[in-house]
């Protein structure tokens, strides 16, 4: 499967990137492909494209600051959570998402 993610945090210099790294590693460890966009102090990085969304199976929004353009993901099964969960227990989030989408 192809799983997308977006991370953001209040200051945008630390947890945004830890969460992105956590999700990337956890999704890949579960045997799936991942693309995680960061919305931090350096703007939007690794931006998710329309093509990505068309090809994706699900999405994780791990955001503690307002997400930019969340409507992009309206048609995808989406798990919303705190960025801190993506830092602390990304494996559990991925497991929860995979179980939910069967």
């Amino acid at each position, binding site marked *: 499967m192809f799983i997308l993610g977006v991370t953001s945090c*209040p*200051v*945008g*210099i*630390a*947890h*945004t*990137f*830890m969460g*992105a*790294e*956590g999700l990337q*590693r956890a999704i890949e460890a579960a045997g799936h492909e991942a693309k995680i966009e*960061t919305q*931090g*102090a*350096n*703007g939007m990085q690794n931006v998710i494209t329309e093509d990505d969304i068309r090809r994706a199976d699900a999405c994780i929004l791990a955001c*503690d600051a307002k997400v930019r353009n969340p409507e992009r993901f309206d048609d995808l099964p989406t798990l919303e959570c705190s960025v*801190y969960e993506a*830092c*602390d227990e990304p494996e559990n989030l991925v497991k929860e998402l995979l179980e939910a989408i069967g």
Partner: protein
Amino acid sequence: MNIGSMIDERLIAFDFSVEDKADAIKKIAHMVFESEKVSDEKEYVEGLLEREAEFETGIGNGIAIPHCKRKCVKQAAFTLVHLNHPIEWGAMDGAPVNYVIMLAAPDGEDNVHIDILAALARRLMDSEFRSSLLNAKSIDDIKKIFN
């Protein structure tokens, strides 16, 4: 630019003595001020405390990453401070903290340095990287980790 090029020896400490979290923030922020990374120590500490009030920055595995992005930061920086005894930091895993990586980011469009702080944050998700930091006993050991 890479993470190693941003290391400032004045911001590395071993066997560092603090009483508690508040004392750690105060003393380590003072190091950052003394190394001329911030122009206003009081404002920097306020920024750090404001961020802690939102959600404590103990990220687990004995590490805390107090940080803020403020106008008073002249130059982006990070500290690598090994405490001589663990302190309570409200960490995500509930474990006490004995390593403080304090980050300072200027409130501007300086993406190069934000990218480096971001790269450092990403590496903190790597358990091997974390244990080499915690096991480092000298500035040379630290430099080896980043080069």
